[in-house]
C-alpha cells in the first residue's frame, strides 16, 4: 500500500539520481557544457583572489618608492623660498616629515655614444635634501648609495635606466646641458624602482639642482609625509588653511592612478570570466533545449505515471544545477591554482620592479561566495527555461510518434551548437 507520508527529499533524491545518470549517458556533451562554467568561475575566482594581493603589494611598494602622502606647489607653479613654507607645514598636526625639492623636466639633445643617457630624450632632474628626503621617501637602493649632503656633481638613477642606457652604471658619468653650461654627473647609486622610463627621475642634491636651473635657494615642491593612521584629507585641509591660497595641495596621485589602472585591467579579466559564464549559460540553455526534445518520450511517460509539471521542471533544473555545482567546484579549484600561478608570476615582477619579492594570496569570502553564486546562478537561470518547457510536455506526447514539426524546430535551433560541441 502507498504510505501517506510525503517525503519531498525522496523525490529530489530520485530526480538527482536520474539527472546524474542521464548526464553520464552523454558524457562528452556534459563535459563540454560543464567546462564553460568551469572556465568562467575559475577566471572570476582567480582574478578576485589575485586583485587584493596585487593591490596590497603595490600599495606597499609605492610607499617605499615615492612615499609622499601630499605634495605642495605654488598656485602659480613658480619656485619659492622654502623656509617659511616648510616651517608652516611641519607645524601642522599629524605631519610626520617634510622635504623641499626642486624638480624640472629636461628635454635632451640626442647625444648618443658613451657617457650619455642612451635613447633617453626626456628626464626629470630632481634636487633633494639628502637628509630630509629620506624621512619622506625611504629610498631602497639596488646598487651603490644614496646622495649625501656634501655631494656635488653626483646623481642617483632608477635601476630601470639600464633598459635605456645599458652602459650607465655606478661609477660612470653622463652630461647634461644646464643653465651653467655642460655639466657631468657621476652615478653613485641606483634606486630599486622602475619609475617612468619615458622621463627617468634623476636625483641630485638640492644645491646641484638649484645651480642647474639657476634658481639658487629656491624649491618648487614640498613633499609631506602624514603620520600613520591620521586622516589624510583632514591634514591636507589644515595645511591648505595654514598656507593660504598661494599654494596648491595635491594628494600624491600616482599611486591611486596606478591602482585604478590596475583595477581596470583586472576588471577586464573579470569581464572575460563573465563572458565565459555567459557562454556557459548559452551552452546549458541549448543543451537542455535539446535534452527536452530528446527526452520528450521519457518526460511524457513520467507525466503519464503521475509526475506533476512542477516535478518535471524540478528534474531538469536539478540536472542543470548538477552541472553548475560540478562546474563551480572544479572552477574554484582551477581558479585557486590559476591565482597561485598568478601571484607567483607577479611576485617575480614585483621583485624586479617594486623591490618586493613575494605576494600573499588572500583567500577571501567575497571572492568565494561571488564565484559560487555566479556559477550556480548561471546554471540555474540557463536551465530554468528549458525546464519549464519540459514541464509542459503532455503525457500523450510519449505515447504517440513525435511530430516531425516539433523535432525539426528544435533541431534547427540547436543544430549549430551541437556541431560546435561535437567539433
Amino acid at each position: 500500500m502507498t504510505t501517506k507520508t510525503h517525503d519531498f527529499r525522496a523525490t529530489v533524491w530520485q530526480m538527482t539520481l536520474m539527472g546524474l545518470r542521464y548526464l553520464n549517458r552523454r558524457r562528452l556533451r556534459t563535459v563540454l557544457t560543464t567546462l564553460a562554467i568551469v572556465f568562467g568561475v575559475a577566471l572570476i575566482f582567480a582574478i578576485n583572489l589575485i586583485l587584493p594581493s596585487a593591490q596590497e603589494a603595490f600599495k606597499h611598494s609605492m610607499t617605499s618608492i615615492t612615499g609622499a602622502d601630499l605634495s605642495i606647489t605654488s598656485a602659480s607653479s613658480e619656485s619659492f623660498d622654502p623656509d617659511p613654507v616648510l616651517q608652516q607645514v611641519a607645524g601642522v598636526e599629524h605631519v610626520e616629515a617634510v622635504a623641499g625639492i626642486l624638480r624640472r623636466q629636461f628635454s635632451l639633445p640626442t647625444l648618443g655614444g658613451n657617457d650619455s643617457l642612451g635613447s633617453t630624450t626626456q628626464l626629470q632632474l630632481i634636487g633633494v635634501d639628502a637628509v630630509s628626503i629620506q624621512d619622506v621617501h625611504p629610498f631602497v637602493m639596488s646598487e651603490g648609495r644614496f646622495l649625501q649632503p656634501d655631494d656635488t656633481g653626483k646623481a642617483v638613477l632608477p635601476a630601470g635606466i639600464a633598459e635605456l642606457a645599458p652602459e650607465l652604471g655606478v661609477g660612470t658619468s653622463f652630461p647634461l646641458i644646464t643653465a651653467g653650461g655642460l655639466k657631468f654627473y657621476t652615478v653613485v647609486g641606483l634606486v630599486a624602482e622602475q619609475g617612468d622610463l619615458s622621463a627617468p627621475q634623476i636625483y641630485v642634491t638640492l644645491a646641484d639642482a638649484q645651480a642647474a636651473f639657476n634658481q639658487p635657494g629656491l624649491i618648487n615642491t614640498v613633499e609631506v609625509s602624514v603620520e600613520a593612521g591620521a586622516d589624510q584629507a583632514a591634514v591636507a585641509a589644515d595645511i591648505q588653511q595654514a598656507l593660504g591660497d598661494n599654494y596648491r595641495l595635491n594628494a600624491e596621485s600616482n599611486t591611486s592612478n596606478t591602482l585604478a589602472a590596475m583595477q581596470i585591467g583586472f576588471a577586464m579579466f573579470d569581464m572575460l570570466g563573465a563572458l565565459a559564464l555567459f557562454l556557459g549559460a548559452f551552452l546549458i540553455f541549448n543543451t537542455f533545449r535539446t535534452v527536452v526534445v530528446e527526452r520528450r518520450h521519457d518526460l511524457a511517460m513520467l507525466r503519464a505515471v503521475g509526475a506533476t509539471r512542477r516535478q518535471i521542471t524540478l528534474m531538469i533544473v536539478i540536472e542543470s544545477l548538477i552541472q553548475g555545482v560540478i562546474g563551480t567546484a572544479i572552477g574554484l579549484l582551477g581558479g585557486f591554482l590559476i591565482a597561485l600561478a598568478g601571484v607567483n608570476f607577479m611576485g617575480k615582477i614585483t621583485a624586479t620592479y617594486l623591490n618586493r619579492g613575494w605576494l600573499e594570496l588572500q583567500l577571501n569570502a567575497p571572492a568565494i561566495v561571488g564565484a559560487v553564486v555566479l556559477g550556480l546562478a548561471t546554471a540555474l537561470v540557463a536551465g530554468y527555461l528549458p525546464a519549464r518547457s519540459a514541464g509542459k510536455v503532455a503525457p500523450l506526447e510519449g505515447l504517440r510518434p513525435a511530430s516531425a514539426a516539433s523535432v525539426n524546430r528544435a533541431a534547427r535551433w540547436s543544430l549549430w551548437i551541437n556541431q560546435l560541441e561535437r567539433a
Partner: protein
Amino acid sequence: MSIIHTESLTKIYGAADQSIPAVHGVNLAVEEGEFLAIMGPSGSGKSTLLYLLGGLDRPTSGRVWLRDADLSALNDDDLSRVRRTALGFVFQFFNLIPVLTAQENVAIPLILDGVPRPEAMKQAKTALTQVGLADRTRHLPSELSGGQQQRVALARALVTTPAVILADEPTGNLDSRSSDEVVQMLRRAVDDWKQTIILVTHDPRIAAYADRIVFLKDGKIVDENHLKGQDQGKADQIRVQLSKVAFS
C-alpha cells in the same frame, strides 16, 4: 458498483470543418474487479477512449467518473495525483525510463507520490516478485527482453494498488509466448487481487481472457460480449464478431 464510468464521452480532434470525432457520445461503466477488453478496427477510437478513461487526455465534452471523482473537472496537478495513485498504465512500447533499473522504474510512481525511497524500493521489489522478475531488479531496461520489460511495466502499474489498470495493446510488441505470459498475469491480477483492468487490443486471442468485450467503431460502442462463464479460449468466435463489426 461501477468503479469507472463515462457520460456521453466525446473527443473531437481538429477544428470546425476539419474536425474528426475520435470518440463520440460513449457511455461505458466498468465494474470493480472486472476485466474489460476494448476492441475495434484501426481508427475506431479504442486508444483515445482509454486515454480519456486514464486522464491522459481531456474530453471535448462529456465526463469520466473514477468512483466519485470527475476526472474531466480536475486541474492538472490533481489529475497527476490521480494517475499516480489510483490508475496504473501499461503501454505497447513498455515506456520504461532507460537510466533506471527495473526496481527503480517500478518505484517511480511511489517516489513521485512522496513515499520514502527505501519503502518505495521495498514495495517495488515485491511487485517485481509478483510478476516473476525477482532476479532482475538491478537490470536496466536495455538488459531485459521485451516480455520482461512489459512485466516490469506491469509491476509498475500494480505497485500502487490502483483502482484501475489501463493497458493499451500491452502485447502488441511481443511474441506469442511473452504475450501469453503478460495477459495471464493480467488475468491473475483480476482473479487473485481483485484488480480492475481495461485492456485495448486488436488480438481476439488476448481479448478472450477478458470478462467482457466492447466493440468500438467510428468512436461509438456498437457491440458487447460477456465472456464470463464461457469458454474463454474461443478466440475464433471473437474474431468473427470483430469482423462483423468492422464490415457492418
